[in-house]
């Protein structure tokens, strides 16, 4: 009679090797990112005072259009726009795109800024849903409002790109808050190397818990609740480690849609944002890489940590789950849409490192890790796997995670020092440890759910319920 036990042990061993191998690859990528990020930060120490930046770059700073898609933002839109108009930058305009809001967003803007209908010729370079009207304000010549039919965020951004006249545009979410000097800092690569720089991303930080007045973050504080606190560490890791590292080797695959600066001509050349995409920001950056490499032009897409955009993090598990499954679907959608770039020598480092990273971390990572949560302990309990395997897996999903999260915090404190109090650092260190015991696993579960939704071609965006940075809102 055939002995199945040996086959089962062999199968379990292969599966365990796959799970541990994927974990090792993921951990190796993170450790590599940490080293590169530390090197990048040491080579590029931040300029402390924004007054110095103005003194230095004020006369040569290129014009920028700030594009703000707004959908049902009636509660905060006027205050947000006021804070954007007060940014410290010599030459910019704010273009708010009302994306067919069902509430009083447009009416609030009309009342708040005494808007009047305005005819402004613009290049119809990108396609989008019809524009119903353009508005300007007699109070400030920096503000324009585009009222258009609903078409989603990417569609609204495309309308904004068409209407803007500046050579650079900055995308920002309507409910986010830019630091006053964020534009000046983000524009720096465009000043230092205007020919090659085509996109720059800045840091997104979580504003929950901070004191916000008049559309400004007046006092930086940590969130009071655990869920946003966990996301503070998560964002630190994503921005200060991953993006900074890939930026250093010009393989940055994502400039966040919540705050990114782009050269208009190149964005128009790639057809703008892909309407209906779950990850329109990732999609655009991949298109830019492909376009520049296909046309054999030298270029750079950078992340710089100093410019800060504050955003509100989800405070409930339900909303966070929706956000994370959507992000996962966005990654998968882009990965499979541009899969021909994966390991394609024509796309060099982007094909190997950038897409390789997406494959390991976003495509295989969640599946292998969730499989590991179930199978590795089960195999060990059944006596199929030795304790060594169990410890190896435990180290990959728990202890290396602690090291990576704490090291991101070390980088932040060693070079940027943006958390105002020693107590904050102590709290975040504790959070960096505990996030690996529960939160990380939950996140991976949501990402597997995102995989499932992707396979079922579920395109629902999900509602992002917010409590509001300056007041209650939905």
């Amino acid at each position, binding site marked *: 009679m055939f002995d199945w036990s040996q086959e089962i042990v062999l199968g379990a061993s292969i599966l365990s090797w796959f799970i541990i191998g994927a974990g*090792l690859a993921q951990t190796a990528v993170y450790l590599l990112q940490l080293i590169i990020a530390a090197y990048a930060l040491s*080579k*590029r*120490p*931040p*300029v*402390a005072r924004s*007054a*110095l930046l103005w*003194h*230095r*770059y004020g*006369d*040569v700073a*290129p014009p920028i259009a700030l594009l703000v898609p707004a959908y049902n933002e009636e509660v905060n839109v006027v205050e947000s726009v006021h804070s954007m108009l007060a940014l410290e930058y010599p030459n910019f305009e704010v273009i708010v795109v009302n994306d067919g809001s069902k509430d009083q967003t447009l009416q609030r803007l009309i009342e708040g800024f005494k808007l*009047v*209908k*305005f*005819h*402004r*010729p613009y*290049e119809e*370079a990108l396609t989008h849903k019809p524009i119903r009207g353009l508005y*300007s304000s007699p109070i400030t010549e920096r503000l324009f409002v585009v009222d258009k039919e609903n078409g989603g965020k990417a569609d609204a951004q495309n309308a904004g790109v068409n209407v803007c006249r500046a050579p650079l545009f900055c995308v920002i979410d309507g409910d986010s808050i830019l630091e006053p000097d964020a534009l000046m800092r983000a524009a720096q690569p*465009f*000043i*230092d*190397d*205007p*020919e*090659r720089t085509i996109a720059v991303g800045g840091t997104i930080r979580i504003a929950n818990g901070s004191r916000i007045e008049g559309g400004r973050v007046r006092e930086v504080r940590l969130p009071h609740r655990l869920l946003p606190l966990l996301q503070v560490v998560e964002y630190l890791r994503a921005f200060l480690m991953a993006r900074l590292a890939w930026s250093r080797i010009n393989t940055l695959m994502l400039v966040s849609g919540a705050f990114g600066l782009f050269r208009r001509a190149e964005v128009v050349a790639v057809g703008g944002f892909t309407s209906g995409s779950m990850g329109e920001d990732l999609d655009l950056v991949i298109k830019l890489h492909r376009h520049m490499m296909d046309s054999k032009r030298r270029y750079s897409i950078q992340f710089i940590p100093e410019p800060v955009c504050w955003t509100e993090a989800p405070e409930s598990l339900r909303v966070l789950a929706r956000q994370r499954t959507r992000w996962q679907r966005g990654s998968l959608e882009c990965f499979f849409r541009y899969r021909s770039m994966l390991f394609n020598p024509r796309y060099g480092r982007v094909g190997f490192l950038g897409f390789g990273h997406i494959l390991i971390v976003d495509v295989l990572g969640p599946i292998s890790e969730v499989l590991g949560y179930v199978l590795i302990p089960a195999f060990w309990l059944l006596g199929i796997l*030795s304790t*060594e*395997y169990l*410890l*190896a897996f*435990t*180290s*990959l999903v728990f*202890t*290396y995670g*602690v*090291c990576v999260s*704490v*090291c991101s*915090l*070390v980088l932040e*404190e*060693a070079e940027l*020092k943006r958390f105002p*109090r*020693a107590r904050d*650092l*102590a709290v975040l*260190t504790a959070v960096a*440890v505990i996030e690996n015991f529960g939160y990380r696993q939950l996140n991976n579960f949501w990402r597997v759910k995102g995989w499932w939704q992707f396979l079922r071609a579920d395109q629902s965006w999900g509602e992002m319920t917010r409590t509001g940075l300056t007041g209650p809102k939905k």
Partner: protein
Amino acid sequence: MLYIWYLSILLSVLSLAIMLLLIVRRVLHERWGTAGADQRRLLLTALIAFTENRDREALKAALLAVPARVAIDAGFEFISLLRGEEHDELLSAFNECGLPALVGIQLEKGNGAERIHAAEMLAALRSENAVEGLLSALDRDRSREVRIAVAIALCDVDALPPLVITLRKIGAAGQRSRRLIELFRRFPPKRFDELEDYAGRQDAVPFVRAAAIDALARGGSFQFGEFFACAAGDPSAEVAAAALRALGLTGHANAPAILVKAMENEGWDVRASAADAAGRLGLSELAAPLAQLMGDEAWTVRYAAANALRSFGQPGEQVLRGIAASEVSRRQRTASLILAEGPAA
């Protein structure tokens, strides 16, 4: 397999230990930080008092009573607010306290951001010994951003080496920076001929040549009109466009012919600059070629041509109305859009 486990424990403990040290460092800094803020406040009070009583000795005592870094930082910001006699006297006090020497050390040994700031401070302090340090930094500094900042500082203290040498020292990679525009704009008029020579060099980087032309147009007089007229036919679109923009500011007897020729250039930015210059100079005799240009494939060119026509006043608007009333075409659409621009009726 076990080594994966042991290594993870080691790395985690190590990272936590480093973080703990950083937290302790932060606690100490928080204590010292309060003292630093107090010192800065005291110094600013002394600086304000100086502007009222001009007591240089009292100011020097206050400067020497605080750490050099506090004195340099607060002093630099304060100096930039002053002009005239007060400014000069304050500089003397800073120099007598030996602060420029400390800034010089920062220029040598600081990190990139600190070295750039040091170059700016040395230019502001106008110390006699600053030039030597700045020239040395222009020669040796490993960062191109610092070398550009140093060149700007040297220009401010009137000690910039010849432009060709300066640009060579800045290096090829630095010759793409918009900071060069800043450098050229600070050029003293007596050295404009260097900019002119460089802008005319066919072997130079087009971006730098265009920046030099822009600086000449902004700061120079009509004396460079002939040079701009020649450069408008340059094979580099970037240089030609800059020369056309410059012509639009200074004018030239032969400008209409030059602009008409440029409107047929292959580069869209050259055609757009030509249209823009025609509008600036009010050359209404160029209405016909501008009207043609409104059918251009590039929106920027169409818009510049239509704007130029509009800037001619009544005659230009008549041309636009005529085109707007004609058969549907790209020109007709552009004319309609431009005529409608502004608050809706």
